[in-house]
């Protein structure tokens, strides 16, 4: 039963049924802004140069993994410091199935040169399986204990990757990533689309964007289902949720499995954008980067990690570009000045996490909500 058009005119937020209230696009402003943003994102390969497109691709793959971390840590409230290792598992599943064999100082590195249609789903499913197996352990502990447990998993996993030279090429050496070929069609090659020749990364960016859109819509839909509400119930009070009939183990397991799936896909695509992968890449620092994606973007939202990913990926480059104009920063390592630009990036990164947690715990998404509410209520202050 939908409201007649004549009644809805001038009352964009009049809902007379739950379906309209819970719809993906419950306001028309949301619908148009989403479509506009998507069109802008789609048109980027025709305007940006290769360097900037690589950054845009990083944003997209960071967003995919960030949404994954937000499912388990934001929606379900299970803090994970081990997200990077699930990305690593995904990346290496992809490289094993889709990459080509090679030889390093540690011996032969295996690769089966399969199609993307096989390795991309597997890059999600294998970490998901590991997450599924790990979940019963994680369900036993909560809060900071869980953070420490996942930290332990991260270190053990990192050790495993460093020692498995047949898979990773060995510590410090690394290997080539999977080749993104769908049924003989290479997604990392120059292509002429709409009369313009796009760069390799431009073509791949479009594919990564497609994956992000699919996974983001899936994630957004998940949060509107019974399972999504069960996640929130567990985050807010797990005992109360259990009393209300939410099966704790099953729900936490689902959260970990889904989150690892997203992490794996993100990790696999990330390695292709980078062009190589070493076992040291999947460390604590990467995990912290993703916590920052979620915290700066917005906890328990889908658009939050996308904003956060843009922020975390673009901010260092932004600083690098303008380093010359900041007086006490030197642009190169070992230059004069109090610190060099890379140190300043890390420093600012830590400061940003602190500032957001202290001043705006809802992240950039929260800033947007405030701005929106201000204009919605204008000229009144509430």
């Amino acid at each position, binding site marked *: 039963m939908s409201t007649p058009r004549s009644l809805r005119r001038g009352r964009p937020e009049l809902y007379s049924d739950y379906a309209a209230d819970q719809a993906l696009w419950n306001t028309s402003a949301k619908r148009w802004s989403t479509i506009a943003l998507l069109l802008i994102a789609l048109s980027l390969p025709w305007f940006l140069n290769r360097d900037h497109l690589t950054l845009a691709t990083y944003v997209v793959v960071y967003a995919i993994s960030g949404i994954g971390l937000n499912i388990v840590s934001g929606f379900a409230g299970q803090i994970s410091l081990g997200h990077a290792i699930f990305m690593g598992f995904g990346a290496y599943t992809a490289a094993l199935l889709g990459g080509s064999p090679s030889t390093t100082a540690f011996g032969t590195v295996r690769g089966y040169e399969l199609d993307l249609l096989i390795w991309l789903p597997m890059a999600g499913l294998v970490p998901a399986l590991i997450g599924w197996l790990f979940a019963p352990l994680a369900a036993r502990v909560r809060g900071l204990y869980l*953070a420490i447990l996942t930290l332990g998993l991260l270190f053990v996993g990192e050790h*495993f990757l460093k020692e498995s030279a047949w898979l990773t090429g060995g510590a410090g050496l690394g290997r080539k990533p999977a080749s993104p070929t769908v049924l003989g069609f290479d997604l990392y090659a120059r292509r002429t689309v709409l009369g313009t020749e796009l760069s390799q990364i431009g073509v791949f960016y479009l594919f990564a964007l497609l994956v992000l859109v699919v996974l983001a819509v899936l994630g957004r839909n998940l949060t509107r289902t019974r399972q999504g509400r069960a996640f929130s119930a567990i985050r807010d009070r797990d005992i109360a949720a259990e009393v209300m009939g939410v099966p704790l183990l099953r729900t936490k397991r689902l959260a970990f499995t889904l989150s690892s799936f997203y992490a794996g896909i993100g990790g696999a695509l990330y390695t292709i954008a980078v062009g190589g992968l070493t076992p040291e890449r999947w460390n604590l620092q990467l995990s912290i980067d993703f*916590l920052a994606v979620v915290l700066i973007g917005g906890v328990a939202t889908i658009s939050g990690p996308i904003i956060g990913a843009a922020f975390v990926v673009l901010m260092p480059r932004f600083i690098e570009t303008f380093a010359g104009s900041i007086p006490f920063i030197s642009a190169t390592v070992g230059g004069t000045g109090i610190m060099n630009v890379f140190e300043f990036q890390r420093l600012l990164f830590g400061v940003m*996490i602190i500032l957001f947690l202290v001043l705006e715990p809802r992240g950039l998404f929260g800033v947007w909500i405030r701005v929106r509410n201000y204009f919605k209520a204008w000229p009144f202050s509430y």
Partner: protein
Amino acid sequence: VEILLPSLVRGAGIGSTYALLAVSFVVIYRATEVVNFAQPALMILGAYFTSVFVVSLELPFAVGVLAAMVVMAAIGAVTERVAMRPLVGQPVFSAAMVTVGVFIVLTMVASRLIGPEILTVGHPWGVEQVQVGGFRFAQVDFAKVFIALGAIALVGLLLGRSRIGLAMRATSLDQETALAQGVNVGRMFSISWALSAALAALAGMLIATSAGGIAAISALVALKALPVIILGGLDSIKGSVVAGLIIGVAESLTASYQASYAPWLGANFEVVVPYVILIVSLMIRPYGLYGTPEVQRV
């Protein structure tokens, strides 16, 4: 036996350093219920200041170490006041994440100060060895055990016998009730952080006694205190000592024997042994050997 005894002593040496680090975590946890992820950075800064005072300024070793501990105590107290105090009453998770932010900032400061160099603390034990009953042990391992356990005993006395210790224990039981009884809760937080940072500095010095010194990057060694506090119990000093020794010995035994008995685990497996113990201990006894089981209310 020729391998076993020296590994045991080496393990006890490493283990007591871990125990000291673990106690520095426990002190903050008991006061604020936050696991302080910034501890590795405090440790490496402590090692840096020890190095400055002893090697560059050529102060006597003991004086230099104490001076470094005082400096770090001040840094710890300032950090608490600036970064942690605004978060009183916020969820524990937020506070823990802020310590991650503090970790990033302080690590950056430390690596800027230290640069690519290797830190040495100019300790008096050198590489000399002691002969006991036909076995040779490194002198520095005994020094580690005595200094670490001595410092922990002092902290235990401070918490258990002194007025400040009583106030700190009251704060950890219930902050509001402590406030109502006239305890200056804010000052207790500062003291906890200062004490913890000083202990971390001492531990940093002990870690830096390893042959060849340490680089800025080895700050992450301090995270091995996390398995220790989980195994021992987050709020127990006794647990930290026992678990620290267990984990140190396990690590050094693995280093001696794993290569010949379980080579399939890969080289340097001892580096991750603490984390394997961590995972197992969380499976069997989540609140640790001596920790207080968490009471859950709906």
